[in-house]
């Protein structure tokens, strides 16, 4: 049973448990379940984008535009509901769709235009945050205060609880379930892996890899839209610069989760565990009285060390096997 679980995920679980114990010893308040559950609000956006960026990375691409799609959806949501006076839930739906459209643009250009994912999503990153800033500028809203005045109902989205469990935790679980089922239990998921392992082979076996690749970017855009809505509800206003500092943490959780940046290998379980580790790390460091400046240092080091470890461990393993396990020799 244990052997079925990938080793890296096991490592992540151990790290997570160790983290909870260490931070708890530093400050016993950390063991308070409700504080831990509430802290999900701070990183649920990173986590849900991370799930679907994992898809993108498995196909061999990369998506760095997620952070700016958050800002764009936030502004679109604010404009539609507060300035144009649309029904808030309709506005939410449209805002998420805008996120999906951004992803679609990325995906089509990358898959059908044969341009590098990094370049397109870099351009997309500038473009989407630029459009968000333009929308704010054209509508004449103060860029610093953002669009505020959302209804009680809407702020319940982030602050509400079901059976004592915050909505953000539930959203985390739902998005995780969707991502897990899509990636690990459906044909679509297998196609994603095959595309990442060998795109030509996937093409020859009759998979429309271009559609597969495009769809991963659309999913990543949609998830960024969801994250944008959630963040708007959590912070109570819509601003264009929301999510601009998300680029680094999103990639950190994906890579820390054991997904190879070159594609073909990885999974959302690792991403989920990694996002909880990074999220708790921030909460724990803050509680431990560490100033917020050091958090970046911790995540940066975590990123480099984990990737170095992943890289070395696979090299090390193969070398180790070569040396220690002798080749089977037929004596006769």
């Amino acid at each position, binding site marked *: 049973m244990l052997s079925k679980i990938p080793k890296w995920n096991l490592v992540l679980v151990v790290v997570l448990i160790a983290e909870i114990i260490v931070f708890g010893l530093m400050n016993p308040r950390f063991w308070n379940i409700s504080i831990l559950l509430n802290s999900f609000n701070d990183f649920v956006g990173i986590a849900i984008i991370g799930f679907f960026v994992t898809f993108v990375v498995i196909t061999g691409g990369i998506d760095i535009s997620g952070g700016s799609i958050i800002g764009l959806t936030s502004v679109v949501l604010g404009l539609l509901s507060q300035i144009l006076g649309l029904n808030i839930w309709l506005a939410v739906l449209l805002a998420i769709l805008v996120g999906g459209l951004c992803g679609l643009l990325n995906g089509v250009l990358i898959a059908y235009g044969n341009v590098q994912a990094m370049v397109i999503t870099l351009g997309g990153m500038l*473009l989407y945050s630029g459009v968000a800033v333009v929308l704010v500028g054209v509508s004449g809203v103060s860029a610093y205060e953002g669009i505020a005045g959302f209804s009680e109902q809407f702020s319940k989205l982030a602050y509400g609880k079901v059976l004592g469990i915050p909505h953000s935790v539930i959203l985390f679980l739902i998005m995780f379930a969707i991502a897990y089922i899509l990636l690990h239990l459906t044909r679509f998921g297998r196609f994603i892996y095959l595309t990442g392992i060998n795109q030509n082979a996937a093409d020859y076996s009759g998979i429309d890899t271009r559609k597969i690749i495009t769809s991963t970017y659309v999913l990543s855009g949609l998830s960024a839209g969801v994250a944008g809505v959630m963040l708007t509800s959590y912070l109570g206003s819509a601003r264009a610069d929301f999510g601009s500092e998300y680029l680094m943490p999103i990639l950190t959780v994906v890579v820390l989760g054991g997904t190879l940046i070159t594609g073909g290998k990885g999974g959302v379980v690792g991403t989920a565990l990694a996002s909880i580790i990074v999220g708790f790390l921030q909460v724990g460091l803050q509680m431990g009285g560490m100033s917020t400046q050091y958090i970046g240092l911790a995540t*940066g080091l975590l990123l480099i060390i984990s990737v170095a470890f992943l890289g070395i461990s696979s090299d090390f393993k193969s070398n180790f096997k070569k040396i220690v396990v002798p080749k089977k020799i037929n004596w006769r």
Partner: protein
Amino acid sequence: MSKIKSITAKREFRTFLFLIVLFVVVGIVNTDFLSINNIANSLKSSLLYIVLAVGMTFVLLTGNIDISVGGVLGLSAAVSGMILRDGGSFLVAIAVAILIGAVIGLINGLGVTKLKISSFIMTLGMLEITRVVQVIYTDGQWVENLPIEFKQLSQLSFMGMNVLSIIVVVSVILVHLYLSRSRRGRYFAAIGDNEDGAVLLGIPVERYKTLSFVISSVCASLAGLIFATQIGFISTTAGVGIEMTVIAAAVLGGVSLSGGVGSVIGAGIGAIIMISINSALVYMKVPAYWNDAISGSLLIIIVVSDALIARNASKQAKKERLNTRVLQEEVRESYAK
């Protein structure tokens, strides 16, 4: 004649053409934009980006990427700024900045070549680390009150031209000659074009990859010095997000992110374009918030059309090859008869 053709066929020429078109179009709307003064100013304000883009080109040529330049810029500007503020000599400040760049570049390079970390991840982590180190080192304060003499360095002029601009332009040309004419310089592009081939040719691939990161980081710390003299103070957010602008500039200038293709001149022109768009908007009386949207869509349009042109060209070449083969066979058949 063939020489002219070979120049016009180059990717840098198209970028340059675009720059001219940009200036002419904006100049039609507002003739002030075409004044010598403004052109010199555009060049002056893009110096920092040109230096960064030159360093980035080295890394991109070998097929890697360096996201950490913004952090290196901020850190080295802050450290050397503090030395200058506390009465240190210029030479010490410059040497310290270059040393910081070299050390960070070395760490990046060793991480990528020895630990086999993907360059994107390695430098992304390094970006975060350098930012934090900068904040810790400066206690989160702005570095202000740089000596007047240091600030005046950016204003020095020689025969009516800004000395700093002359130095940067001349060194870009020298670096271009090094990369395109010298044996060792061409190693960088060779590594990015075909790494296994480069290994088989006996090129010390790992050493040159590490070197490219060192060069990029040293360029970033030089850019940090330029930043310090031009702006006159160093905020804690100095250089935030600059790496994306620089990569975009290099890509605009025809440097391929998959390595092996590109030149520092192209990257430099790309940097001028990225910065000129800002001032062009001001001259066209467009609100400044259009900035990112325009440069983003420009980047996407140029890159996509470039890819389409390249694909069409390769298709055409394939068709021609096929046609000649069919022709040959027909000729052979007619001989057989």
